[in-house]
């Protein structure tokens, strides 16, 4: 693993404008789906992004995959600033970044054959002639472990795991350097999930890929990631290497998260000390640290001001956003 | 049947509801039919097509001295006619009808803002002399043979309508009591008066107690408007109505079929009259400008068979624009009987001799194709069109049918001569009507005269113009006859128009109804409703 930065996010924000029903009819509201995210992803690493549903993982992923324009902040991919680029200008950069989607059913056009799906990017970028394209498609299919005879089939003729393989193959067509994988295995069965995870690891070797791996499943992340970023209500609250995060979690939320993960040992019992309450709505975020309403350590300062994401005293690579982090280490 | 009414009520079906009820503004058949029960014009043609007095004592003529030739103040030929209102004529509220009503009527009629449709009828009266309550003289500024015809003038009630008229003449047409208060008895002077009117559905009439004449038999008359003729039949059969008016009733073929099925329960009367069904030929069309082609068209259609088969002979073939029932009708010099051979040879002569796929072409390769236009939605016309098309096809003429909604057809196609070849429709006329508007060369509608006139064929023959002028001013009925004969000769010789039929009205009457006499012209049978009665 070298240290060339492939994705550089500085103060990245994404706000959605919404109309919501309020007390007096429709109100225009802003929803801060992602706030002030500053992160770097180095070439070849797997950065995992974990967090509860609705905390903004997908939104961040889609910004990186160039689907959403960030509202503010800067984003450089492979050294190129992508903020404010037009659709046409983005096109060449898209070859660098690809995305794998969560739902293998919804992400494949049911009316296209596998061949059409796999050759489409080449057509759009006018790569190769039609014979070569078919050959390339077959090669990719082989790379994800499917026979070339599957080229003529439609997505519905495959099982979930096979479909996810096709979707991975599609992501590889343009030879990208960076792949955003948005919960690629959460719709799959465990037995298939492990196949896909293994496949992703293999492909990473073969194609020198960098992944942003979005997941809500800490066990999967534990297996796969090099570094982990924990997100809560649109903000990164803790970033650390896998080892640090699992062994020395600092943020109370990260700790609670880890406690909530069931382990496979026969222990029918209450977990106790679990995190109470629901995550707050991003439409009406609490003041101060977003976690303060659920935090057992919350104090006045937590309600009043936002903690910065800063390295812990012991480890400059372990970043935490908590007012009480020094006490919690 | 369940909905049969009491014997003193008569329920009549007509196919149109009168949009409005003012007698002298805008004429329409449904209105004159309905108003015939409740009002009378000054004069009218009766069932024998004789001019008679309705709201007057004696018809003024030169012979009886009540019409006097005179000069107008400008020195032109004029004529003065004197009428007397019947002594016992009252409005339905008991007010007597007087000469002030007459003065008011002409005042309204002449007023340019009143909305009178045919204003010339009034304008030709430049002065009214009132002698007393009942007698008056009308001075006319021209001398035409119809000096005593006032069929279009119905006397209006001065005591009710004048205040409204004087307040705002331009709004009179909208505010008249005839429409805003149509059940006001004072508006009516006929044997009946209107007691209820539901737009689009029915009008209920009751006897007018102030009616001066013979007491009518029926206490109540309900006029129901039923536009759909099939529904009309069902209404008749179910007893919802007793009779179907001929003026606005079933189509002829429906009537014939009805007679076959229900001739035992109903009398079916067919009255052929003054609806002249014809095809205007556009003489500006180079093909039709050739007389031989026009003749060939006439020879090529078998009107007799159409009349026999489609109309069971009830609708006589027209030889010219004048009905055989009219006194001015003369034995036609040229009768165009069906003769396809002759038609073919005429077309050959005219240069339409090359047959391709059964259609004639001339040596320039132009095909003999003519457009036949008519009003859409008129089933009978569409049938005739298709028969004509099929028959003319036999002599190699390619007829293309193109029909338009009536408002387009009459509003634009005929008036602005948008029909390229043939336009089929009907004229209504009254007995001995002078064909000035349709045949005089000054009546060709062109942009310069703002498309006025109805000479749609664009026939222009000085001799014919002269004859029309002469016949109009000839006061002696017998001296007019030779002029009429000449007009008909030219008409049949030149064929500006293909005459088809004189349309027949179908009256379906219960066996017990007696006294109803169809007239066959514009004055409706209802003007003589007091003669109607129920006889078991």
């Amino acid at each position, binding site marked *: 693993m070298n240290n060339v930065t492939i994705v550089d996010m500085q103060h990245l924000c994404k706000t959605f404008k919404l109309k919501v029903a309020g007390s007096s009819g429709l109100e225009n509201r802003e929803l801060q789906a992602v706030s002030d995210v500053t992160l770097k992803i180095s070439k070849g690493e797997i950065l995992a992004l974990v967090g509860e549903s609705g905390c903004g993982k997908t939104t961040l992923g889609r910004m990186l995959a160039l689907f959403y324009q960030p509202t503010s902040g800067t984003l450089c991919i492979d050294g190129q600033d992508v903020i404010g680029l037009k659709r046409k200008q983005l096109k060449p950069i898209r070859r660098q970044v690809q995305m794998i989607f969560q739902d293998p059913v919804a992400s494949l056009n049911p009316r296209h054959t596998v061949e059409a799906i796999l050759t489409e990017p080449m057509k759009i970028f006018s790569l190769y002639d039609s014979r070569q394209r078919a050959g390339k498609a077959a090669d990719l299919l082989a790379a994800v472990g499917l026979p070339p005879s599957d080229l003529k089939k439609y997505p519905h003729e495959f099982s979930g795991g096979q479909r996810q393989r096709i979707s991975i193959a599609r992501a590889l067509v343009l030879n990208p350097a960076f792949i955003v994988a948005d919960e690629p295995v959460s719709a799959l069965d465990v037995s298939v999930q492990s*196949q896909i995870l293994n496949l992703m690891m293999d492909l990473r070797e073969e194609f020198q890929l960098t992944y942003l791996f979005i997941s809500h499943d800490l066990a999967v992340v534990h297996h796969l990631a090099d570094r982990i970023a924990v997100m809560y209500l649109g903000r990164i609250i803790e970033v650390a290497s896998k080892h640090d995060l699992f062994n020395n979690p600092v943020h109370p939320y990260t700790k609670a998260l880890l*406690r909530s993960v069931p382990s496979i040992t026969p222990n029918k019992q209450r977990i106790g000390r679990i995190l109470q309450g629901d995550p707050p709505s991003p439409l009406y975020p609490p003041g101060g640290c977003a976690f303060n309403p659920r935090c057992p350590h919350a104090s006045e300062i937590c309600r009043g001001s936002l903690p910065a994401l800063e390295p812990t005293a012991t480890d400059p690579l372990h970043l935490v956003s908590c007012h009480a982090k020094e006490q919690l280490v | 049947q369940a909905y049969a009414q009491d014997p003193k009520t008569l329920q009549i079906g007509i196919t149109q509801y009168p949009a409005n009820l003012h007698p002298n503004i805008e004429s329409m058949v449904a209105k004159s039919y309905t108003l015939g029960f409740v009002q009378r014009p000054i004069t009218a043609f009766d069932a024998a097509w004789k001019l008679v007095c309705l709201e007057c004592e004696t018809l003024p003529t030169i012979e009886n001295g009540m019409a006097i030739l005179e000069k107008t103040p400008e020195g032109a030929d004029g004529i003065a006619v004197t009428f007397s209102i019947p002594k016992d004529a009252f409005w339905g509220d008991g007010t007597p009808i007087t000469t002030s009503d007459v003065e008011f009527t002409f005042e309204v009629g002449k007023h340019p803002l009143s909305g009178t449709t045919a204003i010339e009828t009034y304008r030709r009266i430049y002065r009214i002399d009132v002698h007393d309550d009942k007698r008056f003289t009308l001075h006319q500024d021209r001398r035409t043979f119809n000096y005593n015809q006032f069929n279009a003038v119905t006397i209006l009630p001065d005591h009710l309508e004048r205040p409204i008229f004087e307040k705002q003449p331009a709004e009179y047409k909208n505010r008249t009591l005839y429409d805003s208060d149509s059940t006001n008895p004072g508006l009516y002077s006929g044997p009946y008066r209107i007691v209820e009117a539901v737009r689009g559905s029915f009008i209920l009439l009751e006897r007018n107690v102030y009616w001066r004449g013979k007491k009518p038999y029926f206490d109540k008359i309900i006029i129901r408007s039923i536009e759909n003729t099939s529904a009309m039949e069902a209404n008749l059969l179910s007893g919802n109505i007793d009779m179907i008016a001929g003026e606005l009733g079933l189509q002829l073929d429906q009537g014939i079929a009805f007679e076959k099925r229900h001739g035992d329960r109903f009398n079916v009367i067919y009255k052929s009259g003054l609806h002249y069904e014809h095809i205007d030929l556009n003489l500006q069309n180079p093909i039709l400008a050739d007389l031989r082609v026009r003749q060939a068209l006439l020879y090529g259609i078998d009107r007799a068979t159409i009349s026999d088969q489609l109309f069971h002979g009830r609708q006589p073939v027209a030889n010219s624009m004048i009905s055989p029932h009219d006194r001015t009708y003369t034995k036609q010099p040229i009768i165009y009987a069906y003769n396809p051979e002759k038609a073919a040879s005429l077309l050959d002569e005219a240069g339409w001799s090359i047959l391709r796929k059964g259609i004639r072409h001339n040596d320039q390769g132009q095909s003999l194709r003519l457009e036949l236009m008519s009003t859409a939605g008129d089933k009978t016309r569409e049938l005739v069109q298709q028969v004509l098309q099929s028959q003319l096809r036999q002599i190699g003429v390619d007829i293309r049918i193109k029909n338009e909604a009536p408002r387009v057809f009459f509003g634009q196609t005929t008036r602005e001569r948008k029909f390229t070849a043939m336009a089929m429709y009907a004229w209504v006329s009254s007995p001995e009507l002078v064909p000035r508007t349709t045949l005089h060369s000054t009546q060709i509608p062109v942009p310069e005269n703002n498309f006025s006139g109805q000479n749609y064929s664009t026939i222009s023959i000085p001799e014919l113009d002269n004859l029309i002028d002469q016949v109009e001013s000839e006061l002696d009925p017998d001296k007019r006859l030779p002029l009429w004969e000449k007009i008909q000769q030219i008409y049949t010789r030149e064929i500006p128009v293909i005459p088809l039929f004189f349309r027949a009205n179908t009256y379906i009457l219960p066996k017990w109804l007696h006294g109803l006499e169809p007239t066959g012209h514009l004055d409706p049978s209802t003007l003589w409703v007091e003669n109607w009665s129920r006889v078991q």
Partner: protein
Amino acid sequence: MSSVDETILSVSNLSIGFETDEGLIPVIEEVSFDLHTGRTLALVGESGCGKSVTAFALLKLLPPFGRIISGSIKFRGQELVDSTESEIQAIRGDRISMIFQEPMSALNPVFTIGSQVAESLLLHRHLDKKMAWQQAVEMLVAVGIPDAAQRAKNYPHQLSGGMRQRVMIAMALSCEPDILIADEPTTALDVTIQAQILDLMHDLQERFGTAILFISHDFGVVSRMADYIAVMYAGKIIERGDAGEILTGARHPYTCALLATTPRIDASVTRLPAISGRVPAPGQRPAGCYFQPRCPNASDHCGEQRPPPVDLSVTHQLICHEVVSE
């Protein structure tokens, strides 16, 4: 209240099929298990193996073309398989109730949650509307919904996912049923919320002594909940036993493989062992052992004969040719 460990529901040799154009295709084959009061049986298996169908069959809520082919379901001695619709209606929601995976779609969007919870009470306890509402609110308090009296007037869409699942639980438990069937009740939830719901089910089971049939595909969750575990594969229960026996002493190659491929945070492997191939679809199941095409230990006769049942202990059973009882 019945005593703990009494067998309250007993399923034996249950086979279920679906009528299709190709005829009746068996989906569940010869499934047998018992439920005990105050105890949880977890049914584990991959997607499509028939967990939900089995659960629906217990309440005779099979989808339109589903049929019980054979077998028996005895609830407190009463045979449910051939009971009438009205008999089963009296049991549903009262003695046996069910909660579903997707709490949003399983709640009727047009009724308030209070009225939905109260409905079972109206149907089975014949309470008047006010009483039923009151009890419903109490039930909502019991499942830990804050400010329950107000919340009862909310519609499902106004609640978070975890709250909705609590409502589902309140609804299922409102008549204090003997049996609760929970079909993947936490799959749609976040881990922290999942932990809350699992705790809640623990509490309620302790309180009411309910027997729970807990369906899941996640061994982690199962290990938290189960007293007994039954592992399903392709419509058959291939191994069952006490939670400990299965989680630490599984013998069936499928169970072992499944446990091994499940990523865990308490152990690190560089590469997850994967099971090749895929679950055979109903109607395309192979002869012999259904797992044989994917089984690393398969020998020839695995593909020919149905594997025999093997008893490893009183509670631990499996069907496999390659495992012999000790």
